[in-house]
Structure formats: structure tokens, C-alpha cells
């Protein structure tokens, strides 16, 4: 019996070791530029709505600062997600939303190490260029809201599928991705003026 458990543990630990190495490889593969910009198309599947809610727009991820999420269709609005919280969502001090926002920030920044603190990450696919991972929340509190997050991409995250505990789904495709080493003032200003 003991031998069996022992070998099982060995198997699990070696698996996680291998996993860790693979994750590190993905982490390396993800480029983390000073500024990442692109288009997004978000589909939100909500149970009581017959059609998914589709929004499109542009996003900007500034390393170590946060995310600017500019929705263009169907109605223009802008969300600014940073360490201070979320600006632009007219909901006031909402701790749950702030939390989700932080996770989104981490997801888009592609910081696997930070994500590992909050989620258990398993690798679904790893090729030469394409990878896909699944994140399961560690915290039981978070699991009440999010049941699973699927990510895939190459140098950047290209596809995000968020399964909510309620059964709703949020799917985002990222396209037209552009990297940049310098952050133009117009964008940097968005974060600094809040501090």
C-alpha cells in the first residue's frame, strides 16, 4: 500500500515538475513588451439572452501599469483597469469587479508566474508555436464566480474563454496584435493621472 502511494506521489510530483518546466517555456514564449495593442471581439453568452452579446473594440496593455479596454461597438465606452482598480465602469466601489479586473490584467499581461499563485494551470497543448492552457481557480471564493479559464496563443494570448460558475461564458478573440517598446504619452497619461 505504502509503495503504491509512494509511487503515485512520485508520479504526481514528476508530472508537476514537467508541468512547471513546460509552463516556464510558455512564459518565455509570451513576449511581454512595454506596450501591446490590438483589436478584440468579445462574445458574452448569458443564459437568459437568446443571442450572445457581442462587442468589439481596441485594447492596450501597458506593462506594469494596466489595461485600457476601449469598446467601439455596439456603444462606445472605455474601461481602465490598473492596480488602483477599475475606472470607467459606473458601478462605484465593487470589490468583486475589482478582483476580476485584476485577473484580467494578469491574463492580458501574460504573467504566468503571477497567474500560478491564483490558479492551477494545466497544459492542454504545446507545439512549436501554439500553446493552450487551462486555469482552475485555487481559491474557493473565486471558484464561486469563475469555474475555468481557457487560454491559447503564440507570442501573445490570442484566445480567451472564461467559464463562469453560473453557466455564462465569455469568449474573446484578440487580433491585429502590435508590440511596441515605447508607450506614447496619450496612453501613459491615462495611468499616471490617476495616481
Amino acid at each position, binding site marked *: 500500500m505504502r509503495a503504491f502511494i509512494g509511487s503515485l506521489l512520485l508520479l504526481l510530483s514528476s508530472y508537476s515538475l514537467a508541468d512547471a518546466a513546460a509552463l516556464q517555456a510558455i512564459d518565455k514564449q509570451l513576449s511581454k513588451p512595454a506596450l501591446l495593442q490590438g483589436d478584440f471581439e468579445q462574445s458574452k453568452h448569458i443564459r437568459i439572452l437568446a443571442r450572445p452579446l457581442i462587442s468589439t473594440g481596441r485594447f492596450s496593455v501597458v506593462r506594469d501599469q494596466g489595461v485600457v479596454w476601449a469598446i467601439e461597438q455596439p456603444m462606445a465606452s472605455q474601461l481602465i483597469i490598473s492596480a488602483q482598480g477599475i475606472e470607467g465602469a459606473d458601478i462605484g466601489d*465593487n470589490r468583486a469587479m475589482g478582483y476580476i479586473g485584476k485577473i484580467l490584467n494578469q491574463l492580458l499581461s501574460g504573467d504566468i508566474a503571477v497567474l500560478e499563485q491564483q490558479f492551477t494551470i494545466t497544459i492542454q497543448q504545446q507545439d512549436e508555436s501554439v500553446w493552450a492552457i487551462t486555469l482552475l481557480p485555487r481559491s474557493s471564493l473565486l471558484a464561486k464566480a469563475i469555474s475555468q479559464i481557457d487560454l491559447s496563443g503564440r507570442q501573445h494570448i490570442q484566445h480567451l474563454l472564461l467559464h463562469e460558475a453560473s453557466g455564462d461564458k465569455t469568449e474573446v478573440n484578440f487580433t491585429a496584435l502590435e508590440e511596441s517598446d515605447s508607450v506614447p504619452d496619450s496612453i501613459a497619461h491615462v495611468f499616471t493621472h490617476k495616481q
Partner: protein
Amino acid sequence: MYSPTSNKSARLAGALAKVWLLFFTALILLAVLYLPSVKPDTNILSLLPLEQQSPLIEKSQQQINKQWQNTVIWLAAGNTPNDAVTKARELEKTLKDSALFSELKLQWQPDNSSSLYPSLLAWRYQLLTAKDKAAINEDAAGFLQQRLQLLYSPVGMQYAMTLESDPFFTYGSYINGLMAKQDADLYDGVVILRDGELAYALIISQVAEQGFYGQKALAKLHGDITAEGNLGAGMPLYSAYGAASAEKEISLVGGFSVIAVILLMLWCFRSLLPLAMALTSIITGMLAAILACWLVFGHIHIITLAFGSSLIGITIDYSFHYFCDRLRKDCGSTMHSLRTVLPGIALGIGSSMIAYGILLLTPFPALQQIGLFTVAGLSAAWLTVVLLYPFVTQYMRLADNMPTPGVYAAYLYRWPQFCYRWRYILLLLVAVFLASGLSRLSSVDDIRQMQKPSPVVLEQEQKIISLGQQRQDSQYFIVSAATPDALLAKEQQLSQGLDKLQAQGKIQEYQALSRHLPSLQEQNDNWQLFQQKLFASGIFEQSMQQLAMQQESINNITESFMRSKDQQISIEQWLKALPSQWQDLWLACETQCSSIVRLTGIKDTQVLKDLAALADNTQLLFVDTVADINQMLKHYRHVAAGFLVLAFAVILIFLSAFAGWRRALKILIVPISAQLLALASLSLLGYGISMFHLFGLLLALGISMDYAIFHAMAKHPLTVAMAVLFSLFTSLLAFGLLATSATALIQAFGLSLALGIFFAFLLAPLINSNAKAERDVYYAP
């Protein structure tokens, strides 16, 4: 010198001793019965004066203190949140094992917030935040559009989840408004605070009722935990550290006093019997003191004990006088000795009892206890000397010579001679000293003087506050009205004033029930608002159809809304669902309904005036307990000064009856000047004079009266001088050590007493009329 006693004398001594034995046996019986249950009270709140407060204010105090009275928060430090949580789990186990806590919370459940959402859900169309209400009123379509934007954003998860029950997310934002703002992260359900590199995991604990040893254990535990880099703060720690430091002081003062007494007695009298007798009177005194305090008051505070340890130094005075007399060549029988010293020590204890007895008239528990403690202790020790000593010391042989008679002679004769010779210069010096000191007199009336918290605890608190854990201020409003609805309306009136102050930055925040609970009328209005602006107008249906909401769902929502039409939630129902911090704001309805409005982040003391201005003293009270108590301290400072003057007058009359008014006046000059000099010294040393200093001077008056009386009435000045010198030494030692106390109250007493009796001692021989005449030389033949 040994001399045989007559039979009559011996029989009298024997009788007296039997009386003492009776008294002592009774004391022992009481001690056996009650001492084991005596537990020193370490709670600093028990020091607060027993004020005749209105029951309303008292109730509000209880509820407010209840929150924090037993709470200690701990922050376990780690390099990452994960690390911090692991450390916190270990810390939780340590805390649990200590058996000092009745409650430990690691997993954060912000006080039944998980049940909060469902419990008020039925009234979701009656409950509305002011902001949402205004927005719907102004532009309902625009409001809904904005809300729907949230659905499209990646963070609108909460809204999407509750779309069916809360179609406009008005209930969700209402509930968010109720929850405490916290700039903290939740990691695996544990609150994490960040400070640059470090992460802290929060544990909230409730301390169980503690006795003295529990308090000390708590202080030690806190010291150990914080030494590892963790943080811990809370009100119970004040008492815990207070207990630990008080114990140290008691040992210090008590220990040194006993050692000093032993050394002095041995050196001076070179025999064990005087020492044994001295210890007997000390023990009797202490027993009587503790029992009296416990039986009369039902508790004894650790501060009383700390002060009471100085009792050792003053009860020994009567023993000294007796034994010094026994050293005289022709001291006669022990009864004769007793009769010689009796007038002196009787007047002495009389004046001390009056002085300490006055403390019993104040409303401050600490002072009352100190008063009774000392009166009982002194009386018991005095009785021991008077009743027991003559009998037991009958056959005692003491060496016939006084050690170092030169010293007493110097004190008695040389010192007055010196003063007489240089009297003009000395008078000038004294005048300058008094003038400079008394002109600088400043007063201090601050309750924080009563117990300065240990610096360790303060430092921890500062750190925790800097991490964002703000605490509410101790000032607050009590609002009253006839009905709950009227109460809410009145609170809203107050809110207007408070909003202005908040906008000016004078206060940071305030918590009032009316900010979140609409009155019954308002609840109806809210429902009507939804009806007119969103449902009847068709905006709801249109928008949801645009979103492709299924028609069935749209109908369900509308029906559910219609059914909720006449719902109303009462204050009691609402409060039951809420976290305790909200419930504690409610003072229930008796003749009137009352509630508390709490304040956070009052900028400075100037703002207190603005706040007081908002009150009207009948329905709207502004309660500032700190200011009220300080006011009391000030009042009693004046009372103490009055007592001092009164005491002088009474003693003058009293003494005049005994010794004629001319002599009485001459005697009184000593304590009067002594107290003035002490006052000037305190002022020059930089102390603001507080009520405690003045009471200390009053006590010094009581004690220093003894010196003056002894000197004036001494038939044998040299032995008296010796006794006075010895008693001064022990008293000065005791009070001087008290002056090093960390507790400001005790320090004030110790310092005033030490200065008062020191100056009295210096001045006393100057008025001895026998000084020039007698020149006793007591050397062995």
C-alpha cells in the same frame, strides 16, 4: 535601655496584645476566606470615573466599546500572499493553543455578507442607493444604457449573473454600498494587506475574559509573535501590557522597600526582634489594605496595588518612632515608650487618614481605591504598633547607643543653625525659586495621562493603521426621535451637515443607518420610480428585447416586480440581515427610538467644535467622552486645590485646639511652604500640573504634617530626628521609585509625594523650639 516593667504596666501591655491578637485573627480569617478570590483588575476602562451619565449614553458606550473591547487583530507577515496565508494558518494554531481567545477568524467572511445578499433580495425594488435614484430620475434611458455597457465589458460578470433577479443592477450596487470598503486583496478567502515587499494575512481574534495571569500571558504571547515580524494590535493589549508593567513596578517598589526596611532595622537596632515586629506590622497593614479594598469595592485595580506597594515605606514610620524611643537611656517601660510616642503618632495617623480619606470623595475609582487601601493599611499598622509592640518587646534588649548620633544632631541643630546664619540669602533663593516655578505653572487635563499605552503597542497600531485599517473615532452622535421613520429623517438632517464637513475634508467618513435604509415612505417612492421610469415607460422591455432577452424572462421579471409592489422592510428586519457593525448603530426603541452616527477620520480637535455645533442637546447629542472626562479632570483639579486650602484650614483649627493658635501656625508653615516648593519644582521640571499632582501634594501634606508635629511636640528631639530620618528614607525610596512608573497617574503621585515630603523634611527642624535648649547626648556610659 532595658529596664524592668512594673506589674501594672505589664498587665496593660498584655491586655492590649490580646486585643491585637483578636484583631489579627479576624484578619487572618477574612484573608483565608477572601484572598484566594482576589483578582487584580487590569482593564483600563475601569479607571474611568463613575459618572452619572444618561442611560442612553451609557448604552451607546457599551455598544461601541463592545466592538473593539476584546478584539485583537493579527497580521502574519510573508513574502508572498501564499506565504502569508501559510504563516497565518500556523499563527492561528499558536493562538488557539494559547487558550486565551474565544474566537479566531482567518477565513474572511465579512460578517454574514454571504447571507446578506439573499436576505434582503425580496426588497430589491424598495432599496436603492441615492446615486442610482438620482440617475433614474434624471434620465432613465441613459441610466439603463450605461448599465448595459457593463454587460458588454469583460468585468460585468456580477451583473450578468444576476440579470434575471436584478435587471438594472440596482440591488447589486446597493449591497456593495453596505459592505465595508477595503483596499485589500482576498487570497483564498483570507484578507491580505500589502506593504511594499511584504504581504500580511489578517486574523481577527476575540480575547476571552482574562484574569491577571491571562493578561500577562497575552502580553508575552504578543511579544513573541511580534518579535518574528508579525503585527498585532487591539484594546486588550493595553490592559495586558499594563498588567505586565504594573507587576514589574510592584515587585520593584515592594522589593526595594522591604530590603531597605530590613537593612535599616538591622543596622540601626542590631537585633532581630525589631525587624520581626516591623515585618509583622507591614504584613498586617498590607492584609488589611487589600481586604478592605476588596470587601468594600468588590475589585482592586492593578494601579492601586502598584501605588499600594509604597505603603511599605510609610507604615514603617510608626515602628521607627517606637523603636527609636526604646534606644534612649531612660526610656522606661515599654508602656512608657508607647505613651511618649503616642501623641505624635496619633496626630500623625490622624492627619494621614484625613488626607487619604479625601480621595474617597472623588468619583475616580482608582483614587477611591488608593484612599481606602492606604487608610486601612496605615490603621492596621498603627494598631499593631500600639497594641502589640509594648507586650512583645518587654524583654527586648537593645544596644544603648544610637548609631551615628552625629547625623541626627546635625539635622536637628546644625542644619537650623546653618539656615539661621544664612537666612537672608536662603530666603532670597527660596523666593526666586518659588517665583520662577510658580510663574511657570501650567495645567494638564488629559485622560490619556491616566494610562499611557506601552510604546510597543502604540508602534504596532501605527503600523497597522498605515496599512489601511482605519478605526472609527471615539466621538459620535446620538439621534433620537419618536418613530423609526422620524429617526431616519432626523439622521438625514444631520447627514446634510456632515456631508458639508466631509466635503471640506474635516472628517473622512461617517456611518449612519439612514444612509442605507430608506424610510417607509421612501421605499414606496423607490418602487414607484422603477414603475414609472423603467417599466411603465417601456424602457425596460425595449432594452431587454434589444439584448435578445427571451420574452418569457422579460415577463417573469415584470411579474415579479409587480408582486413586490407594497412590500416594506422595517428597521428591525433590515438590521437582522446586516453585519454587527451596522447593528451596533441601533439603540432600539423605548420611549424614543435612537441610533448612533459614527465618525471616522476627524481631522483635528478644531473640528470637534464644528461637530458639537451640529448638535442640539435634546434630540441630537454629540458625545465626546474623552472631552467629558477631561472636563472632569479639570474640575477635580480645582476641587483638589480647594481641598488643599480646606485641609490647611481644618488642620489649623484642629492644632490650635491642641497647641494654641500661635504654635499651630508655626507648625503649619512647614507643610505649606513644603507644598509650595514642591509645586514650584514640578513646574520647573517641566510638568504640567494635573489633578493627580494636586492630590499627590494633598497626600504629601498628610504625611509631612507628621514631621512638623513630631518636631514641634518632641520631648526627646534626638530620637525623633532619628525616626524622622529613617522614615523619610524609606518613604522617599518608595515614592521615588513610584515616580519612575510608566503609568502617568502613579508617576504624578510618586513625584509630588516625594518632593512634598522632602521639602517638609528640610523645613521641619527649623521650627523646633526645643532645639536650642536641649542637647541630649546619648552615648553608652
